[in-house]
């Protein structure tokens, strides 16, 4: 099997999804900026979508996986809207959008 076959097959899709998920997690954990955290989450959700789509094609050859991916996209959109609103709110309250400062639930 050539590299192209590997990369364009299920393995390649899953590999990209894995990379995206890992980077998304790192972003969520590492970013001080709340917007950065939001971007990481978007990456994670995309990784999940990729998995659904790839299995939809290579496993079942049916439409169901795409429907789930569609739902994920919709939820991601809603999530992004709410998250931005929260970030705006946070800034108004604490004069910062540092994720580490959002610690009202501390202790």
């Amino acid at each position, binding site marked *: 099997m050539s590299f192209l076959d590997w990369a364009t097959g299920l393995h390649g899709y899953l590999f990209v999804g894995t990379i995206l998920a890992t980077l998304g997690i790192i972003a969520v954990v590492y*970013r001080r900026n709340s917007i950065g955290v939001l971007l990481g989450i978007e990456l994670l959700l995309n990784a999940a979508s990729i998995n659904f789509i790839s299995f939809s094609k290579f496993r079942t050859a049916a439409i169901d996986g795409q429907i789930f991916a569609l739902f994920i996209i919709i939820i991601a959109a809603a999530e992004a809207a709410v998250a931005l609103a929260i970030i705006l709110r946070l800034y108004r309250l604490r004069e910062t959008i540092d994720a580490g400062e959002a610690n009202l639930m501390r202790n």
Partner: protein
Amino acid sequence: MSETAKIILVLFQLLTIASALLVTFSPNILYASISLLFAFLGVAIMFLYAGADFLAGVQVIVYIGGVTILVLFAIMLTSWMYQVKLRDSRAKLIVPLLLALFGLLPFLYQGAQHLASRVLRTVPPDFEAFAFSPKTNAVGEALLGNYLLPFEGITVLLLGALVGAVWLARPK
């Protein structure tokens, strides 16, 4: 699928990975946001190759045209957010990076490859044909057929999220 098409897909996959790296590690939030736009674009192309043409469209419209633009607008239209300088400390990167590289990444990769090996053994014979058939019709039927209830639920969720977002972001 021709060699050329495959090469194009691999290029977009590389674009996705590179953009994702920038999203994660770029110190400038504006650059990160713009990189995310390209990552979404790569993912959309991957969807297209995987036979999800409708999804690819949705990805482009919603993510690129909606979420990313929303984020960019939020960053650029609110001057303070753009001016915010939050330096990410390199020291804080060590633990997540180690965890990601030696825990999460191998796990995900192992699991994914394992699943892939198993799935490919029972691969459906007509998946190539499935991949290159238009899906809009099918998606529409599925949403208003088997998936009607989740579809209705997700519409309510969307409405709630919109109302909530507006309420949260209301001017004080």
